[in-house]
């Protein structure tokens, strides 16, 4: 990237030399318009994943009386995280932490120093921070699925503001912001640990602290509309190309391969879930194939910039199968009420992906190659996952408990439905 930055200024020199034309006549120093176009587009795509993508995926899965509440949560999280990020989040995650750099970043208060001309790599820094912001938005939004249908909106807002500050920003810094995990060589191209294991763990802890929904699991709680859910899943799929291929930060071969493997892994995971379900339960289901697809998207996320098609096929097959078991028999056995299986899909899928990245990034399997071989990479990958699980789990527990003691986490009565109870609105008046 760095050398690439010189390219344009080089043209400047060429131009100057040949025609006495000032370098200022060029486009922004070091900015490549193609890379910028792709990262702008990717930012749009990742935001699209959360609203409306994820919010539709979740909205369809709850009961009709709670359909608005989950969409409201996703939408409000988008807004709150945006403001927190603008004020200090970008600094904590991607700022230069100086002596503390290994652990946390600093600066960029109110993005005051991120001007129109600021450049990061080959794109304007405004675009770079916007792209990263969309990741900070979707990660907490994923957690919504775990506490759906019973959490107070006010408590949800406080939880999320605290969670991104104390959990997401630090972990993002450790891996991507110049922190210690990245420095050690943990591979996480687009957020297997930072986003999915992180959100999945928080989801599990929070739903346990919160307790089950009234009537769970005895009462049937059918999704109000799998049409919405499948539309949401489809939007997640297409938006995810911004997530993974955008993480290349340039519009070239790396982005191209990231998009290809993302697509392959997703298809493979969807088919694996469908196959396993067909064998076990007798019928393939819409919710099954959709959930499988999401599992595949999750699992390829950390690997997307490092593996080839073969890796993608295996990662897809593995995640589809493992998540089917995790969100199925395992969850049933343990009896926690992770309403929409955030842990079973994102936590478990993210872990599968993080580990397999350590294997399929190897040139052996058509990957970009590993510095110290599969063995040592695997331990690094495990370290990254383990640290995220412990840190995210611990902090989430503390935040949840504190809020529960103070403002209270749960609505008094889930029967009426959160839409009327919290928002004086109904989802449908047909």
């Amino acid at each position, binding site marked *: 990237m760095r050398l690439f930055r010189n390219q344009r200024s080089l043209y400047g020199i060429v131009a100057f030399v040949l025609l006495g034309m000032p370098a200022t006549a060029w486009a922004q120093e070091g900015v490549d318009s193609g890379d910028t176009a792709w990262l702008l587009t990717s930012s749009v795509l990742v935001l699209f994943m959360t609203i409306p993508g994820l919010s539709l995926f979740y909205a369809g*899965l709850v009961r009709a009386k709670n359909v608005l509440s989950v969409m409201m949560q996703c939408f409000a999280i988008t807004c709150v995280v945006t403001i927190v990020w603008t004020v200090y989040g970008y600094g904590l995650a991607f700022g230069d932490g100086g002596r503390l750099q290994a652990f946390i970043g600093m600066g960029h208060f109110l993005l005051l120093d991120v001007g129109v001309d600021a450049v990061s790599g080959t794109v304007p820094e405004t675009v770079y921070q916007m792209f990263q912001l969309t990741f900070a938005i979707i990660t907490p939004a994923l957690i919504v699925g775990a506490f759906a249908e019973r959490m107070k909106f006010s408590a949800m807002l406080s939880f999320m503001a605290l969670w991104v500050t104390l959990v997401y920003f630090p972990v993002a810094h450790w891996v991507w912001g110049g922190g210690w995990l990245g420095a050690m060589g943990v591979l996480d191209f687009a957020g297997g640990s930072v986003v999915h294991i992180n959100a999945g763990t928080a989801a599990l802890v929070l739903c346990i602290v919160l307790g089950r929904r009234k009537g769970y*699991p005895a009462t*049937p*709680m*059918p*999704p109000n509309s799998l049409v919405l859910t499948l539309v949401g899943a489809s939007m997640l799929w297409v938006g995810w190309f911004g997530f993974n291929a955008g993480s290349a930060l340039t519009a070239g071969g790396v982005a191209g391969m990231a998009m290809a493997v993302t697509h392959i892994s997703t298809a493979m995971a969807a088919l694996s879930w469908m196959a396993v379900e067909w064998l076990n*339960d007798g*019928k393939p*289901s819409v*919710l*099954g194939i959709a*959930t499988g697809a999401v599992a595949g998207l999750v699992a390829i996320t950390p690997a997307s910039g490092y593996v080839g098609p073969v890796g993608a096929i295996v990662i897809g097959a593995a995640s589809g199968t493992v998540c089917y078991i995790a*969100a*199925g*028999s395992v*969850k*049933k056995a343990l009896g926690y009420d992770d309403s929409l*299986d955030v842990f079973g899909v994102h936590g478990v899928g993210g872990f599968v992906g993080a580990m397999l990245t350590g294997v399929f990034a190897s040139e052996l399997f058509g990957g970009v190659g590993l510095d110290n071989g599969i063995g040592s990479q695997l331990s690094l990958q495990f370290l990254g996952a383990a640290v995220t699980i412990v840190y995210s789990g611990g902090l989430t527990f503390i935040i949840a408990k504190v809020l529960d003691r103070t403002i209270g986490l749960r609505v008094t009565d889930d029967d009426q439905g959160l839409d009327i109870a919290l928002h004086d609105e109904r989802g449908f008046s047909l």
Partner: protein
Amino acid sequence: MKLVTAIIQPEKLDDVRDTLSRLGVTGMTVTEVKGFGHQQGHTEKYRSAEFAVDFVPKVKLEIVVTDASAGRITDAIRDTAQTGRIGDGKVFVSSIDEAIRIRTGETGDGVL
């Protein structure tokens, strides 16, 4: 006057209506209902959650008729709605003391 209440298979609604209008029935009121009975429902499965839905969709016809015509009409419904398969439904007959046409205020058999 009699109230003929028929619970039938949704697919049969149009046939029954045609038969009845041929019998000179000019009006009826129809409600979508859930039926429980001998007929099997179905099961639904959403990830780990599986449950049996044991009602089946039915439609309920309510027809107020003159005492004289009640017999003919129940027979007609029975014959038209019959498939012989479990779940064909039921016909119930009860008595109506009075009927009023709101538009005109008139009462009695003329209303029907």
